[in-house]
């Protein structure tokens, strides 16, 4: 469904993403992990059209989307969320999600109905009338997901939607992602919280200094020497044992 072919992105002398080749199958839930500054978010920005890669190509659903604008890519069915959430602060939760729905539906009335359903799915129904900027961070992350879902993606890129959540919120988010996946949505998830990632993803790729250093099932990746050195650390291995 998504294929990256030797994608490289440089900022001046810094290579943020180096020759990443990656494939995501339809219906898959792929996890991306790696230390801060590893290039995870840059990779999302390249996939979703916010950055044009210096080298390599991005294919989505058979289309070469390299260098296309984010809105065109979204309309093809690939939507991303932002690590630093970007709610439409002065608008209500319902209006936020309605704007997402309007990408697929032309009538405002049916977009509202659509948005109400998505809000329900994401557990935001009690906050539909609340201004987005008044939401606490946990709900903002949910709003970010809800708004993206309203565009009816076939592939959803989630950028650290679990960061900063309390344990109860985290459970809710894991549950939501699982449900979406069970309904057939393909997902790529960036996450720092290893425990959540181990429970969600069947396959994890590890980025370090912009390069893919490992890929495999969660348990394999967690046991990989390079991954332990680069990211997880010895404590993680001990805790797992």
């Amino acid at each position, binding site marked *: 469904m998504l294929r990256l072919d030797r994608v490289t992105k440089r900022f001046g002398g810094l290579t943020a993403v180096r020759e990443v080749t990656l494939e995501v199958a339809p219906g898959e839930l792929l996890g991306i992990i790696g230390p801060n500054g590893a290039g995870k978010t840059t990779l999302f920005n390249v996939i979703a059209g*916010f950055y044009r890669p210096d080298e390599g190509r991005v294919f989505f659903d058979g289309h070469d989307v390299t260098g296309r604008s984010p*809105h065109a890519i*979204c309309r093809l069915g690939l939507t991303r969320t932002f690590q630093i959430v970007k*709610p439409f602060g002065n*608008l209500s939760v319902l209006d936020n999600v309605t704007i997402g729905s*309007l*990408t697929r539906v032309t009538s405002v009335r049916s977009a509202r109905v659509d948005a109400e359903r998505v809000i329900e799915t994401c557990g935001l129904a009690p906050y539909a009338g609340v201004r987005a900027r008044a939401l606490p961070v946990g709900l903002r992350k949910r709003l970010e997901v809800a708004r*993206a879902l309203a565009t009816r993606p076939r592939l959803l890129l989630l950028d650290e939607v679990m960061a900063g959540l309390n344990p109860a919120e985290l459970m809710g988010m894991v549950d939501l992602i699982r449900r979406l996946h069970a309904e057939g949505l393909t997902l790529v998830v960036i996450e720092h919280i290893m425990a959540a990632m181990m429970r969600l993803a069947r396959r994890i790729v590890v980025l370090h200094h912009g390069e893919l250093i490992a890929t495999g099932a969660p348990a394999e990746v967690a046991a990989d020497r390079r991954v332990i050195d680069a990211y997880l650390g010895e404590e993680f291995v001990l805790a797992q044992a």
Partner: protein
Amino acid sequence: MTSGLLARRGGALVVFGAAALAPLVVRDTFFLDALVLILMWGAASAAWNVASGYAGQVSLGHSAFFGIGAYSAALLSARFDRSPWVGLVLGVLLSLAAGAVIGYLSNRLRGPYFALSTIAFSQVLLIVASRWRGFTAGSEGIPVPFRPGFWTLGLGHVAWLYLTLALAVLFYAVEVYLERSRVGFQLAGVREDEDAAEALGIASRRLKVAAVTASAALTAVCGALWAQYVGFVDPFYVFSVDLSIRFALNTIIGGTGTALGPWLGSILITSLETYLRATFSGVKTGFTGIYLIIYGAVLILVVRFLPEGLAGLAARWRTAAARARA
């Protein structure tokens, strides 16, 4: 539903309704003149609101489009003996083109840089209009001939009142459309966060260009009518930064990004101006600049205590009333 509609549109009904009924009660030209100007400056501010309020592309050079409209109508009528309506259409077409160019620039420039580039654009037009003596009569300005009739826009005060009222209602409807339609929602998204809007499938750049272009065209309509109403076009007035600031001031005081706000602000500012002009004109020339001090003070008070403008105040009352009833 009906009561909700009345609550939301009641303000507009009062303002425009009062203007419509005014000539039945008052025949005083001083008063009618003030009313025409209130409606006209309100409409021009509403045009500004489309780009700056709804799309978030804050312009401080909208006098450029106003001037294009004014000069088109004045030149066609004074030099080529054409109807000012033809001039109005020409002004709109020229402003569409100019607006598209400026709007396109806004893709690269954000925030203050966009505002600065719009100021520069209006000042370039000011220089052209004031130096191109052979065509525009330069800094002397152009007197617009008065020929009675609707086609030539030589109208009495009452006719002007209803014409500007029609203009105001039309522009108000455009703004209501921007609040309720698909494109309005998408524009709100672009204003709030362009990256997020783009990620959600909204062609943000095209939308911004469209908003600035439409805003420019609406402003030109006001300029053309204003030239005909006042009967004289002075480049240092129609292309001035002062005028651009007036559009912004009316809207900010009335409520940026609200449909009725531009007229609420215009009621306050235009009547204040009319009053000050009547009080201080001629006698005490030392006071001619006093309006700037008063505008400044009003602006500071509004931004400090009513950040959502007079329309925000009305909304606050409505919420309070609804709560009291519940």
